[in-house]
């Protein structure tokens, strides 16, 4: 099993670095070129969510990413240490809930009320998409997604098929 681990200060600027590392390791692991954009976006979303949680609850703690290639799978685990965020999610930590966020977003759009319509919480006060949208995007992009609560926060585990033999 090959592994790369990264820990970074929870600053938005470092999310791009995390994306670049993830794509580089994915390519090295033999993830198909056609999936690299999905890896880039999914890892970016997971890291953005973790960074926001850390900035709110534990800005001194690093966000951690583990990238492994084993058994024909390339796996990325983004782990935060934001206990407050984990408590705030209050059980909404699976891809099903995340997918619901997308359904709400898509439903609001399909209803013709549009994002600008009243009563459709598609965007939050800061202009971002509603909570859970990032996880919903991950759920759509990764081949397999597991979101779980850890002792310290939330862990987002995503994986894609890979094909390179270890050297």
């Amino acid at each position, binding site marked *: 099993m090959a592994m790369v681990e990264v820990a970074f200060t929870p600053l938005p600027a470092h999310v791009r670095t995390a*994306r670049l590392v993830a794509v580089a390791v994915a390519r090295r692991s033999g993830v198909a070129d056609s999936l690299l954009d999905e890896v880039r976006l999914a890892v970016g979303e997971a890291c953005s969510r973790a960074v926001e949680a850390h900035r709110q609850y534990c800005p001194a703690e690093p966000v951690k990413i583990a990238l492994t290639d084993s058994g024909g799978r390339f796996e990325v685990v983004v782990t935060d240490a934001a206990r407050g965020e984990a408590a705030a999610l209050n059980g909404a930590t699976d891809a099903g809930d995340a997918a619901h966020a997308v359904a709400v977003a898509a439903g609001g759009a399909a209803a013709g009320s549009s994002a600008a319509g009243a009563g459709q919480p598609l965007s939050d006060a800061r202009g971002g998409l509603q909570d859970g949208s990032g996880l*919903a995007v991950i759920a759509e992009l990764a081949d397999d997604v597991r979101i779980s609560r850890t002792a310290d926060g939330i862990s987002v585990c995503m994986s894609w098929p890979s094909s390179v033999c270890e050297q």
Partner: protein
Amino acid sequence: MDLKLDDHEKDGIRVVDVEGEIDVYTAPRLRELLIELVNKGDYQLVVNMEKVEFLDSTGLGVLVGGLKRVRAHDGSLDLVCRQERILKIFRITGLTKVFGIHDTVEEAIKARKSEK
């Protein structure tokens, strides 16, 4: 690549040219520009994303926020994008039904003018 922003007027519509990556780090700059334009009275906007290399949900949120702001003034915010990897995130989130997405700036302006 960082984010490059520029804007100009074309046929009475404010065109915002975006180049680079729109993510949690750079999206606030786009948000500030859209707010600034609306505050100056530009309510008909076209955001040209042909040179955008990356867009995440934070960037989508900024575009939705911009749409809300111009709609509050009976305005519009259309997008120009032909890149499949960017369009994909609009489809995932259902936002293809919210935004008018066009192949070229000229088409976006023409579509907007024909709706008036």
